[in-house]
């Protein structure tokens, strides 16, 4: 599959050169790339899911390595892996249910598996039950699961294999079906990513009231749609936009807001503290949301969050589900950050002779980070496409989207 290889290489290149930026764009590109990877992947008769997962993982590792700061790539890869696992699980159980096999089946890749004790169960229910193994046990699963947990030990993990071998007639259709279902699921994911703005924007009216003063920084499509949705619902409010030096994304946002007819005021980044006392709400778009509820956003966000905390102004983060990252951050200000060119800050010609190029010769260093980390205690609310959530709840939300096995790729 040279074409897939070249596609991957091209995308990796783009990521490396930062040709594609922004979590939405990268997420979309990634998931489309993964779709073609999956569709071109020739699956063996046995263990197709494992083959798909391996292929996706291999590509995913390359992509993540290309731009480790763009967490959306990793998120999407994990999401796709999760889809494969789920589809595989539901297919096997469905097949078993269809064959009326009383033999307990198992997912190949989930070591902590769970037998199926109810043969008449529909595939969806089984899949849901299987999914629950990925989660911490709920009261219901605890109650229902107790008799089965005893049966688990004696079910062989190769049950599915032997079964698929024995049913060679179903095999090819099963294979095709898995791939088809996975691609179906990936398509759904694509739709979800591109539709997350609308999903989030729908909730705008519940959060923005009349005559509100909203502060935002950075340029985020989600924020733009969110504000415009409220505007369309006849809410009138004012927006302060911090310009977001040195990239001046705020100018871009202000331009679009003005084009949509919102009352917009551009302020300097340094005036954030001065203005925050007259602001009712800070709304920002996240670059990524970590599992602990911390937010990685455009540079300057932490300052705004601290100021908002000081003045008890709600700090609201909008994030599509592809931005939810299942990792817990360690020293994210440094490790999940990216330093951009000093030329954005200083005129290169003037200071070039004294710049420190890493050799330790010059006396001037220029720091130009791209992202900022906001610890969870400064965030009041997350608004995702599934609704509003507390920062402390994010880990749980994230568990819905990812398999525990994929956290480390």
């Amino acid at each position, binding site marked *: 599959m040279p074409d897939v290889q070249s596609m991957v290489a091209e995308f990796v290149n783009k990521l490396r050169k930062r040709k594609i930026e922004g979590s939405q764009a990268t997420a979309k590109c990634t998931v489309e790339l993964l779709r073609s990877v999956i569709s071109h992947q020739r699956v063996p008769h046995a263990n197709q899911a494992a083959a798909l997962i391996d292929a996706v993982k291999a590509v995913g590792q390359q992509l993540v390595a290309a731009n480790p700061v763009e967490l959306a790539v990793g998120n999407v890869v994990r999401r796709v892996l999760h889809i494969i696992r789920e589809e595989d699980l539901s297919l096997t159980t469905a097949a078993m249910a269809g064959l009326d096999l009383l033999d307990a089946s198992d997912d190949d890749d989930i070591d902590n598996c769970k037998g199926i004790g109810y043969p008449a169960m529909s595939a969806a229910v089984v899949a849901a039950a299987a999914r629950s193994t990925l989660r911490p046990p709920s009261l219901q699963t605890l109650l229902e699961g107790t008799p089965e947990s005893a049966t688990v030990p004696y079910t062989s993990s190769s049950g599915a294999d032997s079964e698929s071998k024995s049913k060679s007639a179903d095999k090819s259709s099963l294979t095709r079906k898995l791939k088809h279902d996975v691609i179906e699921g990936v398509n759904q994911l694509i739709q979800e990513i591109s539709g997350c703005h609308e999903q989030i924007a729908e909730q705008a009216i519940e959060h923005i009231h009349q005559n509100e003063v909203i502060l935002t920084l950075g340029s985020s499509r989600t924020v733009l749609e969110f504000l415009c949705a409220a505007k369309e619902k006849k809410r009138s409010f*004012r927006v*302060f936009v911090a*310009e*977001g*030096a*040195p990239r*001046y994304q705020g*100018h*871009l946002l*202000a*331009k679009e*807001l*003005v084009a949509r*007819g*919102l*009352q*917009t*005021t*551009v*302020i*300097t*980044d*340094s*005036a*954030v*503290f*001065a*203005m925050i*006392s*007259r602001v009712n709400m800070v709304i920002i778009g996240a670059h990524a949301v970590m599992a602990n509820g911390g937010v990685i956003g455009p*540079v*300057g966000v*932490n*300052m705004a969050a*601290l*100021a908002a905390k*000081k003045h008890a102004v709600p700090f609201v983060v909008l994030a599509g589900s592809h931005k939810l990252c299942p990792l817990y951050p360690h020293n994210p*200000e*440094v490790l999940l*950050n990216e330093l951009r060119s*000093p030329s*954005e*800050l*200083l*005129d290169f010609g*003037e*200071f070039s002779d*004294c710049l420190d190029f890493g050799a330790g010769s010059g*006396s*001037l*260093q*220029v*720091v*130009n*980070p791209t992202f*900022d*980390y906001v610890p969870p205690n400064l965030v009041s609310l997350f608004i995702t496409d599934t609704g509003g959530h507390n920062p402390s709840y994010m880990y749980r939300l994230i568990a819905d989207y990812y398999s525990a096995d994929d956290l480390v790729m």
Partner: protein
Amino acid sequence: MESRRNPRAVVDPKVRQVGFFTSSQPESSSTQPHQQQTDPISASASASSPPVSTISPSGNSLSPVMIPPPRLNSSDTFPLRGAAAGASSAVSPSSFSYSNRRDFPDGSTTASPGRHSRGSFVKSSTPVASSLPGIGMDSMAAAKSSSVPASGLTTVSVATMPPGLAEKASGMEVQSDQKKNSKPLKEKTTKAERRAIQEAQRAAKAAAKADGGKVPPGTSASVASTSVKAAKPAKPSTQKNEVAVAAGVTEKKGGPSEKDRKKDAPHPRMQYDDESRVVKAKRRAVVKQTEAKNRVELFRHLPQYEHGTQLPDLEAKFFQLDPMHPAVYKVGLQYLSGDISGGNARCIAMLQAFQEVVKDYSTPPEKNLNRDMTAKISSYVSFLIECRPLSISMGNAIRFVKNRIAKLPITLSESEAKAALQSDIERFINDKIIGADMVIVKHAVTKIRDGDVLLTYGSPTAVEMILLHAHELKKKFRVLVVDSRPKLEGQLLLRRLIKRGISCTYTHINAISYIMHEVTKVFLGASSVLSNGTVYSRVGTACVAMVASAFRVPVLVCCEAYKFHERVQLDSICSNELGDPNAISKVHGREDINYLDGLTNNANLQFLNLMYDATPSDYISMIITDYGMVPPTSVPVIVREYQKEHLLV
């Protein structure tokens, strides 16, 4: 002298009260508030005044909201004189504006258009004032002139007042005042008299001519003529008393009396959302600023001008602004164009200009140096305000200068007084600004240790001196220079530090949380420290201090004590300065950032360029000042002590 005048300071408010409360008291004083209160009359006074001020040779402005000290009138020996003074003082004695509401003139009530007058500072103000109704009518629309007879009527009513009362009330003062005036009485009297007659006649004529319409010409003419008659004999003494009283008033400021403290309390600043007053202020203004159209709703109370439009206009007007001293003019233009910025630089430039003023000053005949110079300084100050709103430190410096002028002993000759003033100003610059910086540097350097990573924001002069001195002491440290748009002053500091070989890191304010990890101390400058511990400084300082305190990094604010002010402020919105909004939409040196190019006139889009912000005191670990290193809670103590010292020195 001192001891004799001081009691008057205490008496003064009483006299004023009399005017408001009792009718049996000398009516001459009661006419004053009356005129202020009755609408048509005060309207006429205020309406006529701004146009008048452009014409009137008095050289003294009138601020319509001012209540002139009623004592003026009561000091007349004859009722008729009182009448004349009553008519005139409503209009004329705006030179008292500063003695009344003094010392932090930021344009609210005090903008005095003295410089509108056409080069006739020399003329004494009172005779002119007596002719003012006439001139007012002349320049006024006919409709407004209807109210003039009313004012004339009040004067008439005053004229019927029993002579004894007024005399009694003011006799003592007059005596003392006359003693104070060392100049020969006779000669002055005749001169003034002649002028008074002339002016009054001219005024009467003009008045008669001007309003044939609404006002019966006979009445107005007769009123005018009566007032002229009244004025004739009255003039000299009135004028002299006025001068003397002015001296008394200004002198009183020196003593830390009860009233003085009241005056010291910062008076409400000009609120630019108050339309009527803005209109009035505009009429008085020299610098024709065009108001920005697209303003931020929250900041309507602050002046917002379009930048760059006034400069050529002002340059062209140079020769018309006769009474403006060239040194002041130069400084004003430098403020306007932004050539001088930074609290200390602005303050020193202003003080040096005032030194020039003092040097070239000569007391006009029949004027008192104390009073005239105060008026002059006031008019210069209001010019400077028009160029750029004063900083708090400049307000303090102006207060000092005026204090010195007011406290000049009357016995000094002009040259002595001038020399004393000049040396006072020189001393202020040397002690309070330059000397204070040295002390601050000495204190602050003890806080810098080897291996420190110091963060500073913008380009504070005091901090720069500290860093350079520490470098000279061979301390090993690194400096993080944090900068922000649109001024990018940090680059200037960076350039200077690098030239000296200090190793620096440069970044912008958004990245402050990224670099705060490595910082060991934050050094900040301040435009002013307010008495609730709030540090009023370059916008962004609050952000830096906040992030620093969030990262548990000590924040040291370096500020000279002359910048301390007893005002309090909780936010950065009530009082601030707005910069050029266009500086935000255009990113200097980044042509690729042009998203907002065509949108500057869009009604939905505003640009807010704040100049200052207020840092709450809880973010500040220590304030380094020339009185030592103090916590922000000690600021009011220093304010009190410093004020005492600065009044006594």
